């Protein structure tokens, strides 16, 4: 996909637009559209960090497809917990896919951005908490199932991230991989907002950027314990239609050293 009108774009960089938690339904239709008209001049790709809908219905997904479909840049999304509420996540995914929106779930995609191979791995993720204050896979089956889900999702997401054959990697989740970007949320609900297991999967690969949503009252900027830049792009956090991050291609030697097996998309 070409955004060739950007003659003044900086070299060796990818401009990543991102927003999460847009919670689209009929009443919001058209609201984002004016700000999206010129997105091709401002960014090379748009990431949607989950909670695209309110209740995860097919009708709401069609509204998302209308609002974020047909843009001049590729749109890459993960689903959020709201998008699972009606048990119709497969239908939601299909509707978005039909509208040309790439939906990732423990999978990755490599896009060509002006000759730079941009690899994005995505997953909804899940909760469980962070260092020293996290839940364990122990006790009742319900408790074990909760943390097992986070563990399996994180492992498979990490494998998708490591397996991208590209020049630059970005990690996209709905749940948070670090507590940094939760600042502003009550401490008591951190275990429902993210997991260190996602952060650990990210730090094993060190992508150029990690983007998430879900924490509506959190903070935009943070880092993983391993030093990866994290951005919480939940719409009520960034308070604009999308944020744009200009990310430089990492030194090639470092990237080659960390590259694993090529992943299926």
């Amino acid at each position, binding site marked *: 996909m070409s955004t060739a009108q950007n003659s003044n774009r900086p070299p060796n960089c990818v*401009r990543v637009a991102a927003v999460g938690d847009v919670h689209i339904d009929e*009443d919001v239709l058209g609201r984002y559209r004016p700000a999206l008209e010129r997105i091709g001049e401002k960014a090379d790709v748009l990431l949607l960090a989950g909670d695209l809908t309110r209740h995860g219905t097919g009708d709401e997904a069609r509204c998302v497809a209308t609002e974020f479909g047909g843009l001049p840049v590729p749109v890459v999304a993960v689903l959020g917990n709201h998008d699972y509420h009606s048990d119709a996540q497969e239908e939601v995914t299909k509707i978005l896919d039909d509208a040309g929106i790439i939906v990732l779930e423990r999978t990755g995609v490599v896009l060509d951005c002006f000759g730079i191979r941009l690899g994005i791995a995505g997953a909804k993720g899940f909760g469980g908490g962070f260092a020293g204050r996290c839940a364990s896979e122990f006790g009742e089956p319900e408790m074990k199932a909760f943390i097992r889900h986070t563990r399996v999702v994180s492992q498979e997401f990490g494998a998708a991230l490591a397996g991208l054959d590209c020049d630059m990697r970005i990690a996209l989740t709905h749940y948070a991989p670090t507590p940094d970007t939760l600042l502003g949320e009550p401490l008591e609900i951190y275990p429902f907002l993210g997991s260190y297991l996602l952060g650990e999967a990210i730090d094993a690969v060190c992508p150029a950027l990690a983007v998430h949503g879900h924490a509506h009252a959190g903070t935009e900027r943070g880092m993983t314990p391993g030093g990866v830049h994290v951005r919480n792009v939940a719409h009520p956090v960034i308070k*604009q*239609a999308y944020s744009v991050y200009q990310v430089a291609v990492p030194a090639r030697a470092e990237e080659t050293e960390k590259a694993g097996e090529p992943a299926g998309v």
Partner: protein
Amino acid sequence: MNPDQYKESELQRVLTEDERVSEQGIRVSHLEERTFALSGEVESQKRKERIEQVVAERFPDLTVKSDIGVTRVHEPEEVEEV
């Protein structure tokens, strides 16, 4: 035990679980006896009004003050270099 604490929890759950609302980003604060405040942002004026209507309907015995806003959707003016 302050029974207002139970009301606060009930209010928080209604904001998420009542299908007419389904918001997880609204904060409930206890102001004084039988009086609560709601804050946070939603995606439309219609949703803000619906929340106020649903809360009034389900908690007729409480005073609930709303300070809910609608999140702006303007085009970004700046690019952050990461």
